[in-house]
């Protein structure tokens, strides 16, 4: 389900001494303090750690929706901080898929229309979009729910639609922030299984999670604390 963007064994994400500071009530909060990290194509990485340790901030930096205060982030061989807002938006559209804890589907659109949205934004023709929507909804086992609105779907179904939306433009990298955070254990397990299947099918995944089961499903687990990586362990090598 992925497309090759960069040749050879170059990492799909390469972060070097990345820092991110926020001003908060006149003081600087150091959310990420000098993180260096490579994510290879086909990897399934879980970033874990206590709340406020900088996991989500790091994910935003890897996903080019935030800019580092220092250091560099390279995604698929490109430096988003060197791009204009228009370029970086297009870059996200074409190369990165996002899954959020609260799904964030457009409540006014059906499941199919939600999945179609990134493709419409990319300019794919209607026929191609519709075919891809069918393919993706079948992949996440929601073919029969295409016309349902998010409010007519369960939490797990909404998250699966969100995953299908994230995969719409065949991204090089799928980023997920607490994707099981709003789900009960059984539904969370279904989503974890879906992520495993996606990774087996070739999608590079980085998830931020508190969910131990989700973290254990990843091939590599990065532990963060106070804005730095304290442990980086490979559980299973890429096949």
């Amino acid at each position, binding site marked *: 389900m992925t497309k090759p963007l960069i040749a050879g064994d170059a990492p799909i994400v390469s972060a070097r001494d990345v820092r991110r500071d926020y001003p908060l009530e006149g003081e600087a909060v150091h959310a990420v303090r000098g993180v260096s990290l490579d994510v290879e194509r086909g990897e399934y990485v879980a970033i874990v750690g206590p709340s406020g340790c900088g996991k989500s901030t790091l994910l935003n930096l890897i996903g080019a929706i935030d800019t580092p205060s220092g250091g560099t982030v390279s995604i698929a061989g490109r430096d988003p901080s060197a791009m204009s807002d228009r370029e970086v*938006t297009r870059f996200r559209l074409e190369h990165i898929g*996002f899954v959020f804890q609260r799904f964030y589907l457009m409540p*006014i659109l059906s499941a199919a229309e939600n999945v179609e949205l990134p493709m419409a934004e990319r300019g794919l023709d209607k026929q191609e979009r519709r075919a891809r929507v069918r393919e993706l909804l079948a992949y996440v086992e929601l073919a029969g729910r295409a016309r349902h609105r998010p409010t007519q779907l369960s939490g797990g179904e909404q998250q699966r639609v969100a995953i299908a939306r994230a995969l719409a433009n065949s991204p090089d990298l799928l980023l997920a922030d607490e994707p099981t955070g709003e789900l009960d254990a059984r539904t969370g397990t279904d989503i974890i299984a879906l992520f495993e299947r996606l990774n087996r099918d070739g999608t590079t995944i980085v998830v931020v999670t508190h969910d131990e089961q989700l973290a254990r499903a990843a091939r590599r687990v990065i532990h963060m604390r106070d804005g730095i990586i304290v442990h980086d362990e490979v559980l299973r090598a890429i096949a």
Partner: protein
Amino acid sequence: MRLFLALASLRRHRSRTMLATAGVAIAAALLLDMVMLSGGMRASFGNLLTAQGFQMRLPPRGTLPFDTEATIDGAGEIIAMLRQKSEIIAVSPVLGATVRTTRDEHPVTAFALGIDPSVQGDYRMESGRDATDSSSLVANVEFLHAAGLQLGDTITLAAGYNPQLRAFTGTRALTIAGRARFIYLSTGQPAVAMPLRSLQAMSGHLKDDAVSVFMVRTRPGADVEAIARWIQGTIPRVDAVSTAQALAKVDERLSYFRQLSFILGAVSLIVGFLLTTTLVTVSVNDRVGEIAVMRAIGVSRAHVVHQVLLEGTAISLGGALLGLALGLVTARWLNTILSSFPGLPAAIDFFLFQPRAAWTALGLLVLSGIAAGIYPAWRAASLPVARTLREEAVA
């Protein structure tokens, strides 16, 4: 997709959208009515003046037509002078007077016009025949009702009343030959018309051959203003008021109306603008999380801006179309009330629908709707994606 999303966003909070659209519609209706009012009376008055094909009125010098009881002596002589001018193709002398009769010993008063039936432009026949001989007259339906008469009846009309003798003077028996609708008279005013010489004889103006006004028709393409100047210079007893001059005087008298209309119209435009801005801003504030996610997944700023602008445009367009219908209904209703104002010609419309002015007003409203979307669109487009997502997650 953008239009679809914009409309879908509006449908999401139907009551809110409908209330805002209704507010914009009321503002649009008021704006349309003010536009119709500001130009309506002038255009309507212009139509009235030119309806019978007379381009000029000649009242006694220093007066306006029928503004006073002043008369012009020597009508025949003046008509002969005017006919010397080849550009003048018709002259209609008109004498105005008040006439009286009684019905069951109760007085009935009417406005009487002495005219030349062959060139008159004051009434249109509805039934019967014109008053072509000295013993006949035409009357409007209001007079017939007031006097309890019908076509073919003969009545005695008096042009004066002597209070010492307690008797009518200048009486004449006349047969009602036809029913007519008087163009320049106000609603409900009883009126009759008879040959000029009949009314002159009744009102004591026969000897001096007096009239109240001349209406002058010129050849098509003639320079009316030049003819007016020639008349002013040649006949010192009259003023020559062309339709353009009459409209200029109307403009002067209606300037307060126009200013009031302009101010109220501007206020309604601002109200429509603020309503739309408020609704779209509230809508954007409700959706900051969604918008941040759209931006995160790669939806461009331009898309977000277009979508928000389309929301504002859709509200103002919907409001404008509703306002058009509402404005027309309101204008018709107000026109009915104002047209019955005493002393005004019944044919005068206060609110006249002029398509160009109406479309301009509604176009302005739609433009204001687009402008109303600028602030919320800017706010939506400039949302910091990461910070908004973080704040949403915390919330």
